[in-house]
């Protein structure tokens, strides 16, 4: 089943088209990777799809519903979660609290119940914290649960964002360079994590420059260049595409990708 479909997306900044005519679709349990040179428009595409930028053109559908132009929180409520290339963690909250915020949509939030701390609130809090700890465990951060997120090293923050995004129990998860700042071994862990997520039936859209990772786990790959789609296909097709080689992979990397 197609969870997220974007068609003919375009947006410009100060008259310059940052993306133009990009379409993609991703099914439940599928991993779609979007790759392309720096500045190709990958993050911008995420920003449009997740409602942070208003589109000039195109249409976004989430589980069959037209959600173009909907605010991010409305999209989140319909099952879309994401992480950020430039970290957006809640610095002054602990790691566990960061993830608890991620569960916002799974909680009942009633101002009066909260102000007077009705027993239901306390009960719910306990459940939310349990869930958050379990998620932190999943990304290997259980030990840092009560540390302030602002003091975590870069790699840990990236994983914290994934845990927070998963906390909302999304139907589609957009990951913007989750493996950036991770060494090969840590990247391997991300690899496992993303596979597990997809295995649960969540649609995953992955932006990543680590070709080993991308080639290994993607079902399909969309290549952007200069804001336009360059090609789309299976990892093998993409890897062998000379245009991709030239614009993005480079010779040396092509070999590396091939090994994956």
């Amino acid at each position, binding site marked *: 089943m197609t969870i997220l479909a974007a068609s003919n997306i375009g947006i410009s900044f100060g008259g310059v088209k940052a993306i133009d005519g990009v379409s993609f679709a991703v099914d439940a349990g599928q991993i779609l990777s979007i790759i392309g040179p720096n500045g190709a428009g990958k*993050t911008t595409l995420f920003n449009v799809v997740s409602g*942070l930028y208003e589109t000039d053109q195109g249409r976004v559908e989430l589980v069959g519903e037209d959600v173009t132009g909907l605010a991010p929180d409305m999209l989140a409520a319909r099952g879309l979660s994401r992480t950020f*290339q*430039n970290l*957006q963690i809640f610095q002054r909250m602990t790691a566990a609290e960061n993830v608890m915020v991620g569960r916002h949509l799974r909680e009942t939030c009633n101002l009066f119940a909260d102000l007077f701390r009705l027993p239901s609130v306390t009960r719910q809090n306990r459940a939310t914290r349990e869930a958050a700890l379990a998620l932190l465990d999943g990304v290997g951060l259980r030990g840092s649960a009560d540390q302030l997120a602002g003091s975590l090293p870069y790699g840990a923050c990236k994983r914290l964002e994934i845990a927070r995004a998963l906390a909302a129990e999304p139907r589609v998860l957009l990951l913007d360079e989750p493996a950036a700042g991770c060494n090969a071994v840590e990247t391997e862990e991300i690899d496992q994590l993303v596979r597990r997520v997809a295995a649960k039936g969540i649609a995953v859209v992955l932006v990543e420059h680590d070709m080993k990772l991308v080639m290994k786990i993607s079902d399909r790959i969309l290549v952007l260049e200069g804001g336009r789609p360059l090609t789309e296909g299976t990892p093998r097709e993409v890897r062998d595409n000379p245009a991709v080689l030239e614009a993005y992979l480079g010779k040396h990397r092509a070999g590396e990708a091939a090994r994956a």
Partner: protein
Amino acid sequence: MAEFFQFLMSGLTVGAVYALVALGFTLVYNASDVINFAQGEFVMLGGMVTVFVAAAGVPLPLAALIAVVAAVAVGLLLYWLAIEPARGASAVTLIIITIGASILLRGAAQILFDKQFHKLPSFSGDAPVNLFGAAVQPQSFWVLGGTAVIVLLLYAFLERTLLGKAVLATAANRLAARLVGINTATVMALAFGGSAAIGAIAGILITPITLTSYDVGTLLALKGFAAAMLGGMGNPLGAVAGGLLLGLLEAFGAGYISSTYKDAFAFIVILVVLFAMPRGLFGRRVVERV
């Protein structure tokens, strides 16, 4: 028509006063993102020191110079004794420190000087100049001219000199500024000294019109702050535009609507402008990528 021009000139005069104060905010803001609530006290110092030094028999131009030097000294002391030791603290904390400094400076001024109002003679006499039927104090031209000179200098400094860029860089990212070799402490000291000088010059120029006393700073700072925000914080041209606009709003509000509600009128316009342009008239658009 003469009435219109009178309101116009009144607005420009008052507006230039606000603009001068607003300009003082710009430098410190550009170096640190901090609104220096003691800025009004620099304006007060400029006027009061000139008055008292001149009263001691020193010729006016020299007295004015002494006042500027004194204000700069106070600005630097403020930086070294109160801001620098709190380096790394949040902007809110620094703002509260400047509020504390403003209380302190006002308290000190009332002991050191007195609580009376004082005036300075107008630089070129009091005979009003007739402009399209409006009677204008000659001092208004000094204030307008002073505003023009300061805004041009400040603009050129920030936009055209490397040191000016270093000031902006310090506010944009303190860590990166230190990594490229900017001595952020010196830059901040410069900003505080510079805005103290601007404040003092403002005080000297406006005192012949507004009169001065130990506590003129508070309201001037408030209006100057409003002007700076209306124009768009951090942009010297915006500060001047905001100041003049605020002055005009008050004058035309008082003239054509109601003098009692002229402040209300001015603030309502500010609110409306900000709703339409959340960064003021000429504020820099900040782009923050995620």
